[in-house]
């Protein structure tokens, strides 16, 4: 007797066979661990030497040498430490932006695709309007608006959160980037709605919310995962642009700020800070791209080998 395999187990198996994707996953995990370590160190207020990015370790603008592998910046601080710490900003922004855009896009898309009619019209109207506005202007406008305001979440028992550099950025990106995932989910839900298992659920009187949450969303979940992994990269890049426009995180290192500094440094011949940040971005982008592609291949029903 052949042991049956669920969809997920099958996908996982296929993924595991893809060696390059596994290496990429390894890289991604390393990045995530670094960031979590940084948060842990900050939370417990322990001083870890290689995370102390503000310390002066050498003369200003030292080229990469034995002592400072990636050189120093304009204040004599270690570029290596800045690069490591910079992961925190970039990954946090990308993560929360993804979460926010998914939390907005998926329910709206599912509701629109499922209920059709008026709700669908409203949702489509909202996202068509938003997508007509040039992306960079929209982000800029939101970022300018959100800056300096405080979010009153007392009703949720979370207290007030003051919006500063990082939170402004990921809120702005998240609030403007949910359109694609919404469209995707909506189209898929519309397709699935015709399928027999939904008709069957309806026939035995399953409530709408149950259908959406217990049946539909799990079946489009793979799209959410794929979208998450692929768009993550885009959000990291968006942070670079926002830094250039002066809207990014200012009080701790970020890859975007390091690259922005290159405008001043490159004509002087100081290439290492920008190279370090670019390399860091490049590595995680590559890993996410390869892994994301492999993920999509393994989750794509059309490619299932029987």
């Amino acid at each position: 007797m052949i042991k049956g395999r669920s969809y997920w187990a099958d996908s996982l198996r296929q993924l595991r066979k893809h060696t390059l994707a596994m290496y990429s996953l390894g890289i991604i995990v390393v990045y995530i661990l670094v960031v979590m370590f940084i948060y842990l160190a900050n939370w417990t207020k322990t001083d870890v030497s290689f995370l102390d990015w503000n310390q002066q370790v050498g003369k200003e603008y030292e080229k990469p040498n034995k002592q400072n592998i990636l050189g120093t910046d304009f204040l004599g601080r270690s570029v290596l430490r800045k690069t490591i710490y910079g992961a925190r900003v970039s990954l946090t922004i990308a993560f929360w932006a993804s979460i926010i855009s998914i939390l907005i896009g998926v329910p709206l898309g599912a509701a629109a695709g499922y209920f059709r009619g008026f709700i669908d019209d409203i949702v489509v109207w909202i996202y068509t309007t938003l997508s007509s506005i040039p992306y960079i202007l929209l982000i800029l406008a939101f970022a300018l608006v959100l800056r300096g305001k405080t979010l009153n979440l007392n009703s949720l028992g979370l207290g007030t959160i003051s919006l500063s550099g990082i939170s402004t950025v990921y809120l702005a990106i998240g609030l403007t980037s949910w359109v694609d995932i919404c469209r995707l989910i909506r189209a898929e839900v519309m397709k699935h709605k015709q399928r027999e298992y939904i008709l069957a659920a309806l026939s035995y009187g399953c409530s709408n919310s149950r259908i959406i949450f217990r049946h539909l969303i799990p079946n489009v979940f793979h799209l959410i995962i794929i979208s998450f992994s692929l768009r993550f990269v885009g959000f990291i890049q968006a942070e670079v642009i926002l830094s250039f426009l002066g809207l990014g995180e200012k009080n701790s290192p970020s890859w975007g700020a390091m690259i922005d500094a290159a405008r001043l440094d490159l004509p002087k011949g100081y290439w290492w800070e920008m190279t370090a940040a670019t390399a860091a971005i490049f590595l995680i982008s590559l890993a996410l791209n390869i892994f994301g592609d492999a993920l999509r291949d393994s989750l794509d029903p059309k490619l299932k080998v029987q």
Partner: protein
Amino acid sequence: MRYCFLAILLIAGCRYSAEKPDPNDTVLYSSHGAKVRGLDPGDIGDTTSTAIASQIIECLYQYHYLKRPYELIPSLAEGMPFVSKDGLAYTIKIKKGVRFADDVCFNDGKGRELRAGDFVFAWKRIADIKYLSKNWWIFDNKIVGLDEFREYTKTCKRTADVDYNSPVEGLQTPDDYTLVIKLKKPWPQIVYLLAHLPTAPMAQEAVEYYGKDIINHPVGTGPYKLKRWHKGSYIEMVKNPIFRDEFYPSEGEPNDARNGLLADAGKKLPLTNRLVTVLIQEDPPQWFLFLQGKIDVSGIPKDNFSEAIDLRRQLTPEMQARNIKLFTFRDTSTYWFGFNMEDEVLGKNLPLRMALSCAVDRDKYIELFTNNRGEPAYGFIPPLMSCYNPDIKNIAQTAYNLQNARKLVKEAERIYGSKLPRLTLAMPGTDIVFRQHGDFLKRCFKDAGLDVEIDYMDWPTFQNKIKTKSAQMFALGWVGDYPDAENFLQLFYSKNVSPGSNNFNYSNPEFDRIYENACVMPDSPERDALYKKAEEIVIKDCPAIFLTHGVAFVLTHDWALNVKPHAFAYGTSKYRRVDPVKKAAYSELLRTLK
């Protein structure tokens, strides 16, 4: 008047080797790093626009190009003003036969002769509330009857309703070439302001013809006329054929003759036919174009400094091989981190303020951020002024000294009653340069045991914070408009408190008294002594961390002649000239260098 945090003066002149070389057509190429806003002198407010408009439009007086210390000479005026004994009446004669440049706004296109009434019209226009001029502060509460005229314009519903013929007692024109100004109280600095571009005469025909578009169509009496203006790209000006007779100065400073600055003495101005100013907002291309020889004179973009100058303020061998010359000169500027004296934490805690000042390593700042292009400041009167006090460092007691700083912090905590709260410094910008400043400052303060947070914001938000007195500390500076220290002292006058120019909200009755007495005195050693005393009073109260006085650098190619940096004058392109032979030889030179 002009606030700037990093000022870069760009003046340039060079001849561009065009495809069709016309030996009689000389061209001056310069570059600017900011956009030209508008060329209407009444509403002009930024350095770039002033620099351009000053070639086209003239005022009653101007600065002598070569003489130092800086002195005023007549431009459109016939001579220096005749001042009444009580200092309240100024009689100025206008040169005869000066004509506005030919322009379509005049009858049959021919420029009309300049009259005294053109000045009265221009100044009434600034007073006119409907004109929305930002330069009203020049005349505010100065001239008899002008403030009343302004009140009158408030009552008019529309711009067209304002009657410019309604008389103002303090501005009389007994005949077409005489101007009589009556003041409310003595104003010795008025002559400097009459060399300031907003006080230039305006032709009523131009204002009526162009309306709001006058910002694009300046009509003046100057040595140049506007030929082409591609917005956001470049401006081209061409010699004004009916420019009056004005000649290159025949005297200057002792060194000028040796430097070849008197070679063109006596020649009729302007010396160059065309002026082209290209707008380049990013440093790398600006630097490349200068090195290629397309631009002649350039301020050094901070980033490329190391290519040009090593730390001993000399040119690098690369620059010397290209025959590039370097001029350094002091400009009248001071930069600081100001305190809001009305802030509850800072205002009453002198040791805290002094501690903050002692924590900043000025020399390091100058090395990092201005490439040694600055002098440390402990007071606000710049070294260029005659009343500059070289001893101010000792009086202030706020030199960089970490031990001192930490001691003062302890005292400050005692006064405050507990551990000091986190302080905030407002920065008027969010880009990388400001962030670098912020990082540097945070480290300085941290080393002294102070917790300071840097708040980056854009310029409008920053201005707003200052106007509403909600900034605790702020990063700012002041560039002197004229060589009279009153221009700096008024920043501490209690009547100028926010939303005026006294951003510190500093108020000291003794200072006020000395200021009020001194600023109506004519220039004299007694006045200098009073100015010094006033500055001392302010410094002892430590209303700011005074950081640097600006020192500007100008690089030129060797074919750009008659370049002498001037701290106040803008309309200096008329003196400049290009040596075509040397310029043509440059490309050869570049080829041999490769």
